[in-house]
């Protein structure tokens, strides 16, 4: 059989030089080693992931409940993060041994570097950086799967074997290996610096972001404003990117971004004052812990105005992290790709990291401020007395844990994806109209109404009644949504491709 040969010269195979060769070889090895295993034993891996997660919950519960005892005996009596606390090996070991944990000795040995503050900082920073890296990677993969399901297709299925789990990693490798183009007419310095101006602030927002009562890198008293500021600063990078590209579509994207962000920060910050007023603090940890009494104590159900504030916040946050239907700065059908038209490779991926991290941050704010943070719907007064390992474990899973926080966040991210793949994009004048003439008055009404409610009705029977009614409405809506989703999931498969899979004559 003759080989079909192209008439033009074939480009030589890709060659990597220097240390890059080692990286590529390592990536190949890891992939070739992991892919068959993951594709063959997805169930086993999932199960072990759950087991290890629960173990991690248990360990965190052990360590941090000990820290709580230290904090209680502290001079100020205020709770502190693990990373700010001086902790000696002896203290950890003594506590572990006093609870007759068999592995105490080994743990003691393993945990000895934790007594050094710098080491704890580095470990915590690495953890945050990993969180920051992994969330976009999985959110992108998940978005593609969700989009596929919504559009009656499968989404990524090839890379890695099981439902294309390694797709984002493959994309990452591709992006890093891509040529890093800087247009000749662009302002080179600004063009190169802009992705970092967008990327670094959204990374920094994670520094003060609590995932649990003790799961916070820096427990700052103004954490909330810090996070909002970081989400707001991200826009500087976007504007500079659009401007420096010297492309008119990019400039349009930058102008739209500036317009949209500056205007939507006003209603967003206004409604954020509502939970701040309820909790009386700007400390995210304290705001979260104030909602520990079951789901009727969550801020969103405090009164009708907080509920309005919650919904207003969610819509404004969509605009703030430029998700559809507010994705005007990068609207692909109008502005080619908006502000990142001229970007490619690694710099482009930095923008994506920033965007997906911002999605997580705004969802996390919604969860922390309105929907009970890291607490489950059950009131934490129902928690078991920690007499046995099993009960401790159960407490960690049922009442308070970072997993609950991340779970709730991902529900909100899911809603963002759902909206994005369902709704058309709105126009710039409609964006500004809805901000100035709809959202901002609603936000003001929510703020003033909440203030009046707090003064007049707080603690009364009527207030409690309203709280229960709102909570039940929310529960009913959630239940209805879940049942509709389950129905659709069961029946969706039969409808999709009903005729497409049929054998047609002649085909």
């Amino acid at each position, binding site marked *: 059989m003759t080989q079909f040969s192209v008439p033009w010269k074939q480009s030589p195979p890709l060659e990597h030089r220097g240390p890059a060769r080692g990286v590529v070889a390592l990536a190949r090895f890891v992939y070739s080693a992991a892919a068959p295993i993951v594709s063959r034993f997805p169930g086993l891996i999932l199960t072990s992931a759950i087991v290890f997660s629960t173990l991690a919950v248990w360990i965190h519960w052990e360590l941090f409940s000990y820290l709580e005892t230290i904090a209680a005996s502290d001079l100020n009596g205020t709770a502190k993060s693990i990373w700010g606390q001086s902790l000696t090996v002896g203290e950890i070991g003594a506590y572990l041994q006093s609870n007759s944990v068999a592995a105490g000795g080994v743990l003691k040995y393993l945990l000895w570097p934790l007594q050094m503050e710098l080491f704890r900082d580095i470990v915590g920073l690495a953890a945050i950086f990993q969180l920051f890296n992994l969330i976009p990677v999985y959110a992108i993969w998940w978005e593609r799967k969700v989009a596929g399901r919504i559009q009656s297709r499968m989404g990524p299925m090839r890379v890695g074997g099981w439902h294309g789990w390694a797709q984002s990693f493959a994309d990452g490798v591709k992006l890093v290996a891509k040529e890093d183009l800087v247009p000749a007419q662009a302002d080179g310095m600004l063009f190169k610096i802009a992705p970092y101006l967008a990327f670094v602030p959204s990374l920094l927002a994670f520094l003060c972001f609590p995932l649990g009562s003790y799961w916070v890198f820096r427990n700052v008293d103004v954490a909330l404003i810090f996070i909002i500021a970081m989400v707001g600063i991200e826009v500087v990078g976007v504007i500079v990117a659009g401007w420096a590209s010297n492309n008119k579509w990019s400039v349009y994207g930058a*102008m739209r971004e500036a317009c949209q962000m500056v205007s939507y920060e006003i209603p967003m910050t206004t409604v954020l004052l509502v939970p701040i007023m309820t909790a009386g603090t700007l400390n995210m940890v304290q705001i979260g812990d104030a909602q520990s009494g079951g789901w009727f104590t969550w801020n969103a159900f405090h009164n009708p105005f907080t509920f309005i504030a919650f919904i207003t916040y969610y819509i404004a946050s969509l605009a703030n992290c430029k998700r559809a239907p507010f994705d005007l700065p990068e609207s692909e059908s109008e502005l080619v790709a908006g502000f990142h038209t001229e970007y490619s490779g690694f710099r482009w991926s930095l923008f994506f990291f920033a965007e997906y991290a911002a999605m997580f941050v705004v969802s996390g704010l919604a969860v922390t401020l309105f929907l009970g943070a890291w607490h489950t719907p059950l009131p934490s007064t129902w928690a078991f007395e920690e007499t046995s390992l099993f009960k401790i474990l159960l407490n960690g899973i049922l009442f308070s844990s970072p997993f609950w926080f991340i779970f709730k966040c991902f529900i909100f991210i899911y809603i963002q994806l759902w909206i994005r793949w*369902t709704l058309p994009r*709105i126009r710039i004048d409609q964006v500004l109209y809805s901000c100035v003439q709809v959202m901002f008055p609603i936000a003001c009404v929510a703020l003033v109404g909440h203030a009046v409610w707090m003064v007049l009705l707080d603690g009364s029977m009527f207030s409690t009644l309203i709280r229960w009614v709102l909570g039940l409405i929310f529960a009913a809506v959630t239940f209805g949504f879940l049942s509709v989703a389950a129905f659709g999931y069961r029946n969706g498969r039969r409808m999709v491709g009903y005729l497409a899979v049929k054998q047609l004559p002649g085909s």
Partner: protein
Amino acid sequence: MANTIAPNNPAENSAPRQADVRTEEMLVNMGPQHPSTHGVLRVVLRTDGEMVLESVPHIGYLHRCAEKIGENVAPYQYVPYTDRMDYLAGMNNNQAFALAVEKLTGLEVPERAKYIRVMFSELNRIASHLVAIGTYGLDMGAFTPFLYCFREREMLLDLFESACGARLTYSYITIGGVTDDLPENFVDVCSEFLDYFEPKIDDYNNLLSYNHIFVKRTGNVGVVSAEDAIRFGLSGPVLRGSGVKFDLRKAKPYEIYDRFDFDVPVGLPGGTAEIPRGVVVGDCWSRYYVRVKEMVESVKIIRQCLRDIPDADEKEGVCNKKCKTVKLPDDEVYMEIENPRGQLGFYVKGDGSAIPARVKARGPSFCNLCVLEYAGKNCLLADIPAIIGSMDVVMGEVDR
């Protein structure tokens, strides 16, 4: 991109619709490589911030001398070239050229072939409108309806493939009939498809047509009044969207369209149960919605075809036997049909030989595109994709 700045001459401009701050005017090149210009259309926009003061379409990037080729090949050989003009509605293009040549030569078409032609041109109208609706959603930022539309279009393409073996450039309808008879159970499969497809139109309406954002984006945007539509020589859904009830299938029934019962949908003012508030006659939403309604009518026509189609006649076949040897008389003819995009006309002049002396096509996209300069004036930048999308141009046919 050329980094040119328009000379600032305020006297030239007509007053913009809404602009709070006057800034520098800018010339922006939209296309020929742009996601929402549906191919290689290039529109030069003169903008003031987000306002578009003027939009000038530039064409010619896909010119392939299709008409000149017609003067060098026999009509039977020219049929495949007509596919390449409006590549989303190949069947209709074949039909237009075949009808023109048949009118010129007086070739008889078998009865069964006539039904097959009508059926396939209507099926292709559905397929073409599905692409138009899907990509229009894409232009508005809604990605999902696009894939739903393409899912149904895939099934249509399967049907076409089963009949003629091709999925895009069919050359199925040819001079004197169709190239091949239908597969055995085509009638059953096709009616099964129609049963599946008809409720899907409601899905599109719920998903896209009546979506509040979609209505806000397209209602009262790019309005072309009925007089202007006639003045610009528009045709097809773009004309009917402006409220002019004119369809060649009703007005000058060709083939066997006079045997079928169907409606001609036109754009209607908003505020009723069917048409949402905020829609005016002649805007983008009306043009879009006329396409949706036309799909319903096409389904009606196809059902009647499937009911009435005569059985295969072994002796007669589905194609006139003289189709390949026909000589064109020394005469000229102009034949128009209703393409999914409007009136597609073929002018054919013969000189007694087997090869035409002149072939000229009147493309609906080309004529519809000329209204862009009129409609795309003093609107927002985001309205330009909305207007272009609602014209539903196919650049292959504009440039030919």
